[in-house]
């Protein structure tokens, strides 16, 4: 028992350290050079109006926080879906949930921009949530007929393609202004996020995360299957609804601010399970949040700096790191099932 506890503490410490380090690295790298010492100095003093200070406070810090919060939210959302489908290949991106959210968000943006309005954070989240729930509804309907996860993933990818195609279509024919921005967003990016958005996403993700954490007990029981969960006293119907709602809120929040971000939802929970060597929700929920944050900070760092000043879309980078993990897992599962 004590040895396990020590192991878990060490893992959490490692994740926290990674998160902080990658955060700092993100703060100091970029076209305007700031040393680590300068950055720390600027962070622990109020904004002083210098260029360095405003770059740090107004551009880099919100982006770092957004990447950490949204990356964490995405991995937790993936973990919830994996628990729901009892399958580690489930995730908001492969099941088409992110793409559904992307479609409704771009429709909302274009509609509002066409009337000369800018979409507020709350409106974007609401739109993304609606889109996520629509995709989720499709997947749930399909899951009654298709009991094989691989087929369900194929359906999810199809839903994703349909939504992306419609999104591209409306973006192409939308009015010119702000379209560049929209186009960037629809590819997935943490750029252009400011403090007000960070506040909103912190509040939404924080609340959803707290509720998720409170669900960790029934989630643990549910990992043994529906029959046993029910026999141990879990109200399965309510629990499943809560799981779906929370996972949709989390992935919708990510899509609303950063567009679709691929594979984080599958890769990070898998990495965390391998690191902790357990799948206990009470450990995995915080671990996925920290790990997802660190993962997205790393990917965003690469997206920003690899071909600077050109920025890569975040999804291209997460796919490079995440997709191999998913492939490895699917191959491993086949071997285990045989």
């Amino acid at each position, binding site marked *: *028992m004590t040895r396990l506890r020590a192991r878990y503490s060490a893992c959490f410490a490692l994740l926290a350290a990674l998160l902080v380090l990658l955060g700092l690295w993100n703060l100091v790298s970029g076209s305007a050079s700031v040393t680590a010492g300068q950055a720390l100095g600027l962070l622990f003093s109020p904004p002083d109006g210098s260029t360095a200070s405003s770059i740090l406070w107004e551009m880099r810090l919100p982006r770092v926080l957004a990447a950490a919060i949204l990356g964490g939210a995405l991995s937790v959302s993936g973990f919830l879906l994996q628990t729901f489908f*009892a399958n*580690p290949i489930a995730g908001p991106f492969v099941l088409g949930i992110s793409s559904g959210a992307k479609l409704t968000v771009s429709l909302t943006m274009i509609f509002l921009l066409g009337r000369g309005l800018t979409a507020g954070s709350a409106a974007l989240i609401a739109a993304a949530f609606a889109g996520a729930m629509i995709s989720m509804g499709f997947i749930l309907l399909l899951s009654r007929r298709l009991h094989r996860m691989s087929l369900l993933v194929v359906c999810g990818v199809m839903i994703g393609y349909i939504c992306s195609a419609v999104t591209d279509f409306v973006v192409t024919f939308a009015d010119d202004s702000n379209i560049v921005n929209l186009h960037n967003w629809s590819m997935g990016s943490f750029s252009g996020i400011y403090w007000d958005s960070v506040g909103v996403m912190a509040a939404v993700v924080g609340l959803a995360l707290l509720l998720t*954490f*409170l669900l*960790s*007990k029934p989630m*643990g*029981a549910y*990992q*043994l*299957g529906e*029959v*046993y969960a*029910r*026999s*141990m*006293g*879990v*109200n399965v119907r309510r629990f499943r609804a809560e799981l779906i709602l929370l996972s949709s809120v989390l992935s919708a929040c990510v899509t609303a601010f950063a567009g679709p971000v691929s594979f984080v939802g599958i890769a990070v929970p898998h990495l965390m*399970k391998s690191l902790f*060597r*357990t*799948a*206990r929700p*009470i450990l995995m929920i915080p671990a996925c949040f920290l790990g997802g944050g660190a993962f997205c900070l790393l990917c965003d760092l690469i997206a920003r700096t690899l071909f600077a000043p050109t920025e890569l879309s975040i999804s291209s980078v997460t796919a490079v790191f995440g997709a191999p993990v998913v492939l490895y897992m699917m191959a491993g599962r086949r071997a*285990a099932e045989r």
Partner: protein
Amino acid sequence: MEEFYLRTRDLSVGYGKKPLVEHVDLRVRRGEILTLIGPNGAGKTTVLRGIIRQLDALCGAVYLDGRAMADMTEGEIARRLSVLMTQRVRPELMTCADVAAAGRYPYTGRLGVLSQKDWDKVYEALELVHARDLAREDFTRLSDGQRQRVLLARALCQEPEVLVLDEPTSFLDIRHKLELLAILKDLARERRLAVVLSLHELDLAQKVSDLVACVHNGAIERFGPPEEIFTEEHIAQLYGAARGSYIPDFGCLELERPAGEPQVFVIGGAGRGIPVYRRLQRRGVPFAAGVLQENDLDFPVASALGVEVVSEIPFQPIGRAAFDRAAALIRICPKVLCPLDVFGPLNEKNRELAELARTEGRLSYDF
């Protein structure tokens, strides 16, 4: 008389609106084992799922500890009743201790963190099912027998008063079947658990159960102690077993008897005839057997497999009538087998029959 801890009253269960099994009236006290038997697809699992409230009752009710289960909360039920179902459990990265510990669910707080006392109970339960040494093993790597034991430990961690098990012995080899049923027996006797289970193995059901219920034709066809249930006619009717028969004395099944004129006459007794009868059955040779006292070990098997059995009433020396009938059969059959090498006062006539066969040139030692 102790109260019935679990009882159903006019329970109907099924999928959708259509009842599959109706008018289920079962009663079981603490310390008793109730076994459901019946052919595949008769609805044993459905009845069990109705009892544990995983299927809504179409009508009727289930009472647990004197209260209707429909009025109890999930938690109240979970502290009194736990289950071991056939559903495949494939948890990721869980040790056996983790799986067993999941059973503490109804007793832990909001976040489900186990106290030292809870862990003690977990290890006690693992000890009880002889799985203490598996505690740190990965659950998915266990054999079927070990898996069932760990899942049983999980059920025990719920500290139930009723244990419901759906075909717990399927996929287990004989040793593990016996081991599991012995554990159940101990739990019923020592911990005063009421145990409700379904079994396919009639021999085991006959031995382990205090009460047996036969699920057949959409109802509980019979319900009572095993002595009343396990009769040859009833089991044959229950399973529609036209191509074989059930021997209640041995709790064993015999295959269909070869039909036709007897080709072989077997002079048996004291168990020596049984392997010969079975070999003839396998080869499809119709045979007659005799002369056997009705209390002879060979008699039930000979009756199940032989075309004709010449018998004598129990504890009596073989009489004239039986001898004459056997002699007549020996004259018809082309071949006579006599696996006996000792004769005594009661079967002296069998020696004469063997002599007769020898003089007729029909006695063969080729079994």
